[in-house]
């Protein structure tokens, strides 16, 4: 007996819209089961995991602090993935953006005025974009695999950061410990509310709206989609695939770099040997959870941030292991993919040897 997936001739619009919601529901259900099996009060754990973080202002702000970099990076990645360019190295572009943006406060601390912050953001975005240009140009010129190149460049970026904060950029008054001096007030993003949330929130939302308009309403957006779905059709329309690769990588690298410098100038206030808890990789999940649609990505980023904050909350108050939070994130991705698969395909149990008719994907 074999289980076979058979492509549906048409798929339900209703289910397409509902599937992320169903996936979240299924995740919560399995999480409850997991909590109960681990010997905890499942109801209380569910409440603390998924609801409580949204009930007070502090944790709501912390949720947004966590969501902003995810949303920004994922928005950029959506342009890449829609146009069939596989940038896996947003983590590295995030780090290089943070480095490029920090050049001013670290190396030129005397340049401390109203221009400091705007220039830092500009440098950050430019740094990320240029770094993403490397895999794009190599792909265009030598036909290298952009997945591998962009991924390997993550290590280069992390080690560069590591080298700089332990060596040349180390705080001279820091007893040789690996971090830069703290940034001055004019190198920090203004905050919103009473916590750590900064104006990066508004920047992220504005960019998500702009990108969704670009994708839905402009010729460029059409070009992105056509080249992604059918490169041949795109070339008949006169679109250049190589130019698109450069464009997509620079947009996503630029946004990742912007997210990087805003993380440093927002909540950290200095460079440290590690500045990202894997935002560049988590953002890949966010991009797909948001179905590569910038507005849906905003929601997806929030949901994923919730899974982090919620996981921390149950760990702190109920002693539930931090591994559970990782499992819940994994289940979320699994259910999203499973729901999507079942919209496009139906399951058929097959007895006997050969399959007749239909395209079988096992």
């Amino acid at each position, binding site marked *: 007996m074999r289980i076979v997936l058979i492509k549906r001739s048409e798929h339900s619009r209703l289910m397409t819209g509902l599937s992320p919601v169903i996936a979240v529901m299924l995740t919560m259900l399995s999480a409850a089961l997991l909590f109960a099996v681990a010997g905890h009060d499942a109801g209380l754990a569910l409440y603390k995991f998924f609801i409580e973080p949204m009930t007070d202002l502090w944790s709501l702000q912390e949720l947004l602090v966590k969501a902003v970099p995810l949303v920004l990076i994922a928005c950029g990645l959506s342009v890449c993935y829609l146009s069939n360019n596989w940038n896996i190295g947003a983590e590295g572009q995030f780090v290089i953006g943070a480095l490029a943006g920090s050049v001013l406060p670290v190396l030129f601390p005397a340049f401390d005025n109203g221009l400091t912050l705007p220039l830092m953001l500009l440098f950050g975005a430019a740094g990320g974009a240029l770094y993403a240009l490397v895999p794009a140009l190599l792909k265009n010129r030598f036909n290298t695999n952009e997945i591998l190149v962009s991924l390997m460049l993550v290590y280069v970026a992390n080690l560069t950061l590591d080298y700089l904060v*332990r060596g040349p950029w180390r705080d001279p008054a820091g007893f*040789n*410990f*690996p971090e830069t001096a*703290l940034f001055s007030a004019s190198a920090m993003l203004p905050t919103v509310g009473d916590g750590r949330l900064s104006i990066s929130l508004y920047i992220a939302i504005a960019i998500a709206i702009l990108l969704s308009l670009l994708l839905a309403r402009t010729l460029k957006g059409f070009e992105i989609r056509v080249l992604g779905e059918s490169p041949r059709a795109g070339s008949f329309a006169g679109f250049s695939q190589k130019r698109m690769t450069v464009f997509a990588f620079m947009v996503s690298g630029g946004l990742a770099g912007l997210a990087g410098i805003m993380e440093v100038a927002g909540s950290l206030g200095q460079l*440290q040997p590690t*500045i990202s*808890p894997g935002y560049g990789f988590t953002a890949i999940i966010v991009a797909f959870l948001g179905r590569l649609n910038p507005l849906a990505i905003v929601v997806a980023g929030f949901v994923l941030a919730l899974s982090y904050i919620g996981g921390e909350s149950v760990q*702190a108050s109920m002693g539930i292991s931090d591994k559970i939070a990782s499992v819940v994130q994994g289940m979320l991705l699994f259910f999203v993919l499973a729901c999507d698969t079942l919209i496009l395909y139906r399951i058929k149990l097959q007895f006997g040897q050969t399959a007749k008719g239909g395209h079988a994907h096992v």
Partner: protein
Amino acid sequence: MKNILKAAVAAIALAAAGSAAQAADLKACFIYVGPVGDFGWSYQHDQGRLAMEKHFAGKVETAYLESVPEGADAERAIERFAREGCGIIFTTSFGYMNPTLKVAAKYPDVKFEHATGYKTAANVATYNSKFHEGRYILGQIAAKMSTKGTAGYIGSFPIPEVVSGINSFLLGAQSVNPDFKVKIVWVNSWFDPAKEADAAKALIDQGADIISQHTDSTAPLQVAAERGVLGFGQASDMIAFAPKSQLTSIIDEWGPYYIERVQAALDGTWESKQTWHGLKEGHVVMAPYTNMPDDVAALAKETEAKIIAGWEPFTGPITKQDGTEAAADGVRLDDGAILGMNWYIKGIDDKLPQ
């Protein structure tokens, strides 16, 4: 509907607050950089937490967060504990220094204890231990036990604590064998079993027959055991992982410190200070000396007793790698020089990453 929801939320919040208030006089909270199951750094801090919890028998409630990354997440984790009614919060990794100070400024009534840092505030104390004292003993044992005269040393990051450990190790070894060599591999991580194991293999292939580590997993010692060479445990007694290979281990004993500080918080006598204790105060403890002849164990015990009596391993003559004098004969380096050490002593065949 909305009101019902509000009432439910309020009820749960009240219930939680009520139970916490009845349970204990003080809540002590811990932030760990690694998993509590690393059998190294974070494991030992958690053992300290458990010892403290047991000591106060219900009077003190504890909570912890493990694997908290040293970045923007740290500040949130610390602030969460401050908001949830923790009276004293221990942040147990260097990278938590600035986040701890930021949160401390917002919560002046909460007491903070930061391990391995150097910045303090009215409600932020720091603590660390003189691990280099134990390293000197390891160096002596290594020089006695090695047939090839070469030890492999796995370093995490070239920060002063690790550099002073390497120097102290070689000073100890040189006191037995002036030509003793140390080969160093930096793995740029505190906890990465695969990388640590690879480093240990490379060092053994290069001729080291003693493995010493300043990283937190049991992997290097396990590799040493597989390859039939000797080694030292790190942070905890790792004898169970290498019964035939572990010579001894430097054990981080945080329990006494946690008990002392929590007691002070309960008594209202807590004040900010910088604690840096070693073998004498029992904050650094040597695991049993095993897998070595009696005369080597006797030498180790003798040195241990000498340090407990007040002797400092960083006592001159000490010559830096570049040939300049670090300390004249009989002169002892001051605490600041050891805590900020960024130079190698003469005899180390490695260039300090700058």
